[in-house]
């Protein structure tokens, strides 16, 4: 933690404020420390019977237990380590779809899922499967009536995220699970943005498969996991030497897995206090960003949202311009604007909650993390009205009376 010395003299470029934790998080120093021996001196292959290999195997199993405990998984063997959330989502969707083709070929996902859920589903429609996208309401909640209507005896998998990284909305997972299980389909939950921030209990909430990623809880990148409940029929996507019970072949990413385990352990310990702290910061930031500026709005639900998620939008101005002005003052945030994306289309999540193109374009996303402080929140609250004012003065869309 660095002390706040530049508060009175204004921000210099050297003091930067990072509020883009949905895009990437720093690795916790305790995680790095736990990983180092497994980069430096422990290197045996866990598949080898000798002591070098067994040392490694032991470390991987400890990590597996930690990841399992964080989501209250019934047994460690239900955790399959992968290269990250994208691979976990691909494994869950393709792995269930192909393995259960004899039961049905229908998949359901929400319209605000991550691309690593939407695109595998889209791909499967070119392989004889049918995929149905369920719309969400203005807050981003899945339309349950619609879900119930779309579920058929042909449906094998429903994929709904736990919490949305872009608008923060947390889905009623237990309710969804009961509906899905009523039709004998599996429920896959992408908990990438939520796990480590909100308590998740796969057993209590009735989750069959769950995606989680290491970096989203201050672990290293390039490692994630898929939880698979015992009895779920899942086939591999990666074939090879048969690691991870044959469901994910490839030599284990040893330092990554050890780091992930440590990150999960820390998350379990610190979540109750840290999430409360973040919620306080979140609510103060939301209020401070919206109250002083007319024609400003919150994206997502005010209370049923991830503790670190602050998603707002300002009419008449464009998101990338807001980000550039924030960056010029040392603040890193994100935007749902088309002009910052590769696709040139505004975010499908913002379109999904019913925002018009021009409304989606004016969105800014702040995702908070461990190192963010009250002072940093105060600073962002202070500079935002000036930024909005400058860009509105420049915009031909701004109503004349607003600038007087």
């Amino acid at each position, binding site marked *: 933690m660095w002390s706040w010395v530049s508060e009175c003299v204004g921000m210099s470029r050297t003091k930067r404020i990072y509020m883009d934790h949905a895009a990437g998080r720093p690795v916790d120093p305790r995680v790095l420390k736990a990983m180092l021996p497994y980069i430096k001196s422990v290197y045996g292959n866990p598949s080898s019977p000798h002591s070098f290999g067994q040392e490694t195997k032991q470390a991987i199993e400890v990590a597996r237990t930690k990841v399992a405990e964080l989501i209250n998984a019934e047994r460690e063997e239900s955790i399959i380590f992968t290269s990250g959330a994208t691979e976990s989502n691909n494994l869950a969707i393709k792995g269930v779809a192909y393995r259960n083709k004899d039961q049905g070929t229908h998949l359901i996902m929400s319209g605000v899922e991550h691309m690593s859920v939407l695109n595998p589903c889209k791909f499967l429609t070119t392989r004889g499967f049918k995929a149905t996208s369920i719309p969400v309401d203005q807050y981003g909640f899945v339309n349950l009536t619609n879900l119930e209507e779309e579920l058929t005896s042909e449906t094998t998998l429903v994929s709904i995220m736990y919490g949305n990284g872009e608008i923060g909305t947390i889905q009623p997972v237990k309710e969804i699970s009961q509906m899905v299980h009523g039709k004998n389909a599996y429920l896959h939950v992408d908990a990438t943005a939520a796990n480590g921030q909100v308590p998740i209990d796969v057993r209590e909430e009735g989750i069959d498969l769950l995606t989680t990623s290491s970096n989203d809880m201050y672990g290293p990148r390039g490692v994630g996991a898929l939880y698979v409940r015992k009895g779920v029929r899942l086939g591999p996507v990666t074939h090879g030497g048969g690691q991870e019970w044959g469901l994910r072949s490839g030599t284990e990413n040893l330092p990554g897995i050890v780091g992930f385990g440590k990150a999960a352990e820390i998350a379990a310990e610190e979540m109750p206090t840290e999430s409360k702290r973040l919620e306080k910061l979140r609510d103060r930031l939301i209020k401070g960003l919206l109250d002083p500026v007319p024609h400003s709005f919150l994206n997502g639900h005010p209370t049923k949202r991830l503790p670190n998620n602050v998603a707002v939008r300002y009419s*008449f*101005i*464009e998101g*990338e*311009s807001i980000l*550039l*002005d924030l960056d*010029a003052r040392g603040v890193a945030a994100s935007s749902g*604007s*088309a*002009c*910052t994306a*590769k696709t*040139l*289309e*505004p975010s499908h999540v913002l379109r999904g909650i019913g925002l018009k*193109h*021009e409304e989606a*374009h004016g969105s800014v996303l702040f995702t908070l993390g461990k190192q963010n402080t009250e002072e940093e929140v105060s600073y962002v609250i202070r500079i935002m009205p000036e930024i909005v004012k400058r860009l509105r*003065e*420049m*915009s*031909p*869309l701004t109503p004349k009376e607003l600038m007087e």
Partner: protein
Amino acid sequence: MYSKKVMDHFRNPRNMGEIPDADGVGTVGNPVCGDLMSVHIKVKDGRINDIKFKTFGCGAAVATSSMVTELAKGKTLEEAEKIGRSDVADSLGGLPKVKMHCSNLAADALHAAIEDYRKKKKAER
């Protein structure tokens, strides 16, 4: 992502605003990208005497509109008409490829303003 020159025009835009009694106004927009621009010109003796812009859009959109006003100011209408899309990007020291579509708007807005002026002139006669 952006060059120093682009950022300078974004942070300190030249000729930003509107001309209440403009001789020509050009407004162009690209709904896909979300950029919208308007260029106002004042013409005297066949030259662009004054020019102002307003832009809703990304960094590239703002910087190119600012740049096009600098390039066009003081030019004859014939010279200004020749300012092409690539001239604007080149004067800024280049733009990211993905941004080309929004930066093209600035030259288009200038040309639309000149066309508007010519149309009005014709109607006067």
